């Protein structure tokens, strides 16, 4: 009974801790799946124009008219319900003949992939029956839909709410070659004839969830390359550390050589060197080697971490001598003993060193930041920091980039966590 109570208490306490620990990370993932907004606020819509405040639209862009040939477009604000002093709608008076063009447009500058619908209220007066809705990009490429497709029989003198699914547009025409489907202007192009169209409350409605942010940063953004770099470097550094620190650790645990104590003291000492002390000299050295902005600079100095040597030395010195001695009697050479006996026996400690090194290499920031110059060479944390400062607080993309940076290590840990515990358990008499 008391045992159960204790377990229940432990579960309760742990669950509280778990929730607190995971909240920031969960926020990161959920934000990365939003079309726009911040960690907490999530915009439902973009109000393009409701004509209540001044001459600009609600985004701050101008409202303009464009005519060609013998045509005219005039804009007029009309008072409207519910508060005629404050609420307004826009009446567009147009006249157009064959060959001309009559267009009403307003700047939106939005990425169309984020939206599910375009919605507005509209009614026609005096012959104004139909027009097309166009989305136009910076270079004038456009995709159009006739309003009659959504209002059978065209406009009437009653208010109607038109809701156009973004899928109906051929968005791939906009800014081809770029990841975004950026529409610069929202345009109403009027048919031949003359009339008046009244519009109000033009808005884009956001999609609920999207993976676009991931595609943006991974495929069209540079994060794909960063991830490849991070992975390659981390794998080579990890492998190097496993091999080399076992070699060195073995020498310290089992062999005698001059200056052994001094050398071991130096290993312990170099764990405590703040990396910032060495920053400039290391930079100058790597420059003389011609290694700046190469993988060499990111790999070679990290191939043998002193902490791993320490770990391996402690673990190997606790291994029973009997197996090695048996092998030696059988005539095995020192190197055979190392590869056939020590490495297999040291596997639990190797798992610990491996995971630690992988995570350390994956997450390290300062040196890769100083030593790399180009997109091709950057690692994920460096790229993420750069992205953060280039794109301000663009939370959704930043969190997608963060998630990409965080995920692989999380996966590695989840796969190997048993190993870590086991390894640490067997080697935990370290020190």
């Amino acid at each position, binding site marked *: 009974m008391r045992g159960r109570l204790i377990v229940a208490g432990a579960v309760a306490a742990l669950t509280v801790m778990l929730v607190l620990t995971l909240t920031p990370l969960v926020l990161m993932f959920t934000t990365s799946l939003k079309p726009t907004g911040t960690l907490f606020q999530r915009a439902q819509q973009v109000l393009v124009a409701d004509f209540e405040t001044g001459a600009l639209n609600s985004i701050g862009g101008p409202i303009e008219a464009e005519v060609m040939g013998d045509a005219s477009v005039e804009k007029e604000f009309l008072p409207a319900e519910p508060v005629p002093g404050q609420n307004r709608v826009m009446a567009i008076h147009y006249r157009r003949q064959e060959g001309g063009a009559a267009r009403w447009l307003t700047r939106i500058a939005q990425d169309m992939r984020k939206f599910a619908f375009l919605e507005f209220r509209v009614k026609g007066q005096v012959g104004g029956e139909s027009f097309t809705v166009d989305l136009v990009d910076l270079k004038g490429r456009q995709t159009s839909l006739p309003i009659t497709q959504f209002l059978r029989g065209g406009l009437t003198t009653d208010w109607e709410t038109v809701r156009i699914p973004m899928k109906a547009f051929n968005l791939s025409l906009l800014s081809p070659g770029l990841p975004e489907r950026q529409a610069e202007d929202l345009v109403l192009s009027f048919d031949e004839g003359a009339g008046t169209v009244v519009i109000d409350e033009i808005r884009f409605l956001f999609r609920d969830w999207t993976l676009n942010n991931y595609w943006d940063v991974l495929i069209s953004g540079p994060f794909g390359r960063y991830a490849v770099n991070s992975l390659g470097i981390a794998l080579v550094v990890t492998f190097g550390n496993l091999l080399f620190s076992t070699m060195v650790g073995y020498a310290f645990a089992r062999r005698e050589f001059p200056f052994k104590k001094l050398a071991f003291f130096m290993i312990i000492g170099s764990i405590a060197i703040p990396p910032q002390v060495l*920053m400039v000299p290391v930079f100058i050295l790597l420059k003389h080697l011609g290694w700046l902005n190469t993988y060499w600079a990111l790999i070679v100095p990290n191939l043998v971490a002193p902490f791993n040597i320490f770990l391996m030395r402690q673990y190997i010195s606790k291994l029973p001598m009997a197996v090695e001695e048996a092998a030696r009697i059988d005539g095995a050479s020192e190197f055979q003993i190392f590869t056939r006996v020590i490495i297999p026996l040291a596997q639990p400690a190797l798992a610990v060193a491996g995971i630690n090194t992988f*995570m350390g290499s994956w997450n390290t920031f300062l040196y890769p930041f100083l030593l790399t110059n180009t997109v091709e060479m950057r690692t994920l944390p460096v790229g993420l*920091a750069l992205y953060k400062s280039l794109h301000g607080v663009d939370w959704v993309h930043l969190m997608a980039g963060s998630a990409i940076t965080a995920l692989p290590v999380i996966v590695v840990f989840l796969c190997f966590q048993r190993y870590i515990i086991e390894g640490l358990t067997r080697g935990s008499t370290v020190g």
Partner: protein
Amino acid sequence: MKRIALKRWGLGVVALGLSLLAAPGARLPAASADEVTLDFWELSVGEELMRSLLDKFERQNPGIRIRFQQLSWDYGLDKIITAIAAGNAPDVAELGTDWVAQFSSTGVLKDLTEPLTPVKDQFLLWDPATYQGRLYGVPWLAGTRILFYNRALFARAGLNPDQPPSTWEDLRRAAKAVKALGPEFYGIGLHVGEAYAPWQEFLPFLWGNGGEILDKEWSRCLLDRPAAVEALKFYQSLKAYALVERQPQVNQLFAEGKVGIQLSGSWNFSLIPRMNPTLNFGVGILPKPASDRGTPASFAGGEILVMLKASRHPEEALKLMLFLVQEEQAISIVEAQRNITPTVKSAIHHPYYRAHPEQRLFFEQVRTAVAPPAHPEWVKMQERITRVVEEVILSNRDPEEALKEVTASINRLLVAPQVKGRLSDAAVFATLLALLAGLGIGAWILRRRKGPQGTARLSLSSIGVSLTFLSPWLITFLAFSLTPLLHSLVLSFCRYNLLSSKMAFAGLGNFWEVLKDPDFLRALWHTVLFAGGTIPPTMVLALFAAVLINVKVPFKQLYQAGLFLPVATSVIVIATIFTYLYSPGGLVNRLLQTLHLPVPSPSWLLNTKWALPAIMMMNVWASFGYYMVLFLAGLQTIPIELYEAASMDGANEWQKFWAITLPQLKPIILLATVINTIHAFQVFPEIFAMTQGGPLGATTTVVWYLYETGFHRFDMGRAAAVGYILFLITMCFSWAQMRLFKMEEQG
């Protein structure tokens, strides 16, 4: 070149090991013999557009290839400085206006007076590119600060949404009216807690009021004059209605519709629609002191293209610079970026400006904008002005007194001598070599005098085998730890300007200056606080979680993995998330409000009292999982019999914990403490990514102090001295803890 460098280094072993690795991939093969490759580094345009402009340049100029690097504002300057220090600078670089003087005075920039004089009439903004009457760069893009206001909030507060405030009094009245809308609204955003924004936002008031920073001859500081005092007093009076925050947070809350007015830069035009596409905002030029006096001044900044003296292709580099500043290129940058202004005067007639009349506002503001003095010590002056603004805003300091103090300290800067003299690289390397040799010989003699020991009888072949096993460590340790360590030891005894590479012997001067610098002592205190405040909670939390998981809870793996996750996450990611959690509208404040607890003001990372604890809490969150796993492993090794025996004796869980668990875990707790101590003393990325040592130096730790001294003040010798002091402190701690280990093992 590689070979010479290594010879100088005198590390035959290193050469042997490294030449095997260095061969492939280190250098790209040149495409053809007569093709010229230029390196160009740039901060403000963006990778995609810049590449297309450069492609165009390459098409027009066959035979010139451009290798280009995109830098960011947060870290770009550090990269340029490091590159110059390492002799690896680009041919052409973009510099912010406020940095040019310091670069030109150290002699790393090429004097371009002759080639640029003929085109001088075509461009604006020459002042920042001029140093002692010579031209060191060509102005490229101009930026200035304008007034952004929330039209919807103005309408709600009964103000005219089409009329931005045009005088100081208007500004105050508008801020007050918006603040009166409710506790979640702020009349105006005031920037603090970072290097640039505070002075860039305050100085327009001073200039508009007829004030100046220095007199014409740069012989005296004028910040204690009435015009300056009046401006700062007015600025302080805005605080009552203000959101006092870092610029990104002000930008963000403005975008969320919580802030009535902010004085800010062009980036908001693209930032606001991205963060909150629905925000209805307007812009105006900055207000002047009163309708009948003063000017609507603003801060004039911008981008200058400079050529580095080390460039081997000055003609081609000049060609590139003049290509980039041309109207066509400048306009396409402006078109993409929105609202930076080209410096080329003819651009005003470009169709782009006819099509976008609202953007002419920037031209209008640039006309009355003022550039800060192009004094080589300006960077230090701006730091001091920023500090005064922060003191007056955050700590309610009396403006007059604060300005008097900063005037005195800037006056001292004006007479401070510059570092002169130079030790050659050869001398430094010779010293290094001597030190290395000395160390080797010293160790050898020491051994000899101790007489032959057990190891002396080892056969050569046995030593050879040992050496083979040790070689990976020997090579990397000698090359990447010991040599740099000695190099920085040499630096610590010298005055060494990172930028100009001027070096002079200084004896113990650096150490002495550092130890008596109150800022350093404060940094040391913060570091000790950080260690003292993070290590115990981390250990207790980790132990608590480990013991709980060990009572055989169901889903053990889940808890274990979940609590460990933050450890696996990059510090940069964590810092990004927590910056937001700690912001005024962030999760932490929301939680506190829900619980009806007081919320710190100004917000966490800007609060001199709470910024460091906030980072400490984050650090505990991010690291306790690691130690938990360590302890969990330790718990598995405790023999179950001990607990069984204790149970038989009638001990309860609590007694068992104190009598068995804790003593058995002691060695592993000590190990964890050593690791944690080392990490705590080296805390840096968190500070770097979150507060940059601010506010008012409240999060300046020793490593941040080191970084700032070396990379922002270019005083590398002193930075090396700081490094050594920190190294010694950490060594002492580690040594003490190792002694404890030993005693445990023996006892």
